[in-house]
């Protein structure tokens, strides 16, 4: 912020914005006058919910990467691929661009999302002095890029449907697919439930003062 305007928050002047339709209403009312959604000035339980979802997702990330995600039968020979070995195979067969897309979508994005959300939630829960602006930028990126992890599941569903010729050539999904789907679902929910206004409240004393002064 270049100008030195005093920071006035909605809760200071008795106003709150509806979480569903963003209408600005008086903080005294319990429900939004336009869309009837329940109003909260700050949703403190959202941090707990988000932690719970995030921890579950982190645990599920392990089976998602250890177990095979697809089984391929090629002329009687059965091979099982984990997320990583599938990408390694693509690199070996010189399909680097596809390998990069899959690496980013299935390995990098889930890990970055979990690490990013952990830092974000820690900053709120333990009041870590990390720049709020950087955290918020990271959060917006996580929100936007998170859905791209679905790519691997779409590819598997198309492959399974089209490759089904018995012993000759046959593709099937394997257990990691469900774990991976859950990782995506839970991390997306963890990012969605959190009330970001809490971050901006709790670190009010420290942080960006250094950038302003």
């Amino acid at each position, binding site marked *: 912020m270049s100008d030195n305007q005093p920071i006035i928050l909605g809760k200071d002047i008795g106003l709150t914005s509806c979480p569903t339709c963003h209408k600005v209403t*008086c903080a005294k009312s319990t429900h939004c006058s336009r869309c009837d959604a329940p109003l909260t000035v700050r949703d403190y339980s959202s941090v707990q919910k988000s932690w719970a979802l995030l921890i579950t997702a982190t645990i599920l990330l392990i089976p998602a990467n250890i177990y095979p995600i697809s089984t391929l039968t090629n002329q009687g020979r059965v091979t099982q691929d984990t997320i990583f070995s599938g990408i390694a195979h693509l690199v070996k067969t010189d399909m680097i661009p596809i390998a990069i897309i899959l690496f980013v979508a299935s390995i990098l994005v889930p890990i970055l999302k979990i690490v990013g959300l952990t830092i974000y939630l820690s900053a709120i829960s333990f009041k870590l002095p990390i720049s709020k602006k950087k955290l918020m930028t990271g959060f917006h990126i996580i929100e936007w890029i998170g859905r791209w992890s679905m790519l691997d599941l779409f590819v598997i569903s198309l492959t399974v449907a089209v490759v089904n010729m018995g012993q000759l050539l046959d593709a*099937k999904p394997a257990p990691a697919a469900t774990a991976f789907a859950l990782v995506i679902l839970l991390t997306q929910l963890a990012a*969605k439930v959190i009330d970001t206004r809490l971050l901006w409240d709790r670190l009010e004393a420290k942080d960006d003062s250094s950038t302003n002064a």
Partner: protein
Amino acid sequence: MGKEAVDSSITLCRSCDLVIRKRALPTGVRAICPRCHTSLYDTPYCSINGMLALCLTAIFFFAPANLFPVLELEFLGSVRTTTVIEGALSVYHQGYWLVGIAVLTSAVIAPGLLLLSILMQILIVKYGLSSPSLKTVLKHALKTQGVLTQLTMLEIFVISFLVAAFNLADFATVSFGFGTFCFTMLFVMTLFLMREYDLEHMWSYLDER
């Protein structure tokens, strides 16, 4: 306390609760929160008729995109084709029902509901704002809009055609079907529709009258 009429020139940032005084913006400019850089609002204008045209075109492509095969594979003389729905169902029938439901929801059900919901919203805004029951319908449609938009993943599915084709080109001859074209068109139309669509603006129709 009894401050019923809230000053309409003031808005609050939904990410950090900062009080912001609204200003008129030129077309194509978006207001961003000075504190946390969340986008707040842009020009409160969206062409209802333009949206109607885009929405109808997208709906027109929806059926062929899901009925015609999107991927064809030829291996030692035998040919296999699949549609998007068959892909989701084949995973479902292998016992991976969660994956199947996720694929079906994000590629077929959510886009379909989203388009129908937007069509309904447009028609209500154009012709039915005077009826209170239709206004309630509009309200519920707008409340589910955010979830439907998040669940719609057409763009990712279009990329997955390419990735799947390259993956399989190793073993067999792969070609795209008529469905691939329709699905891509469905994606493009939905993309432009969602660029035109403005949720804040749609909500404001409920305030008037």
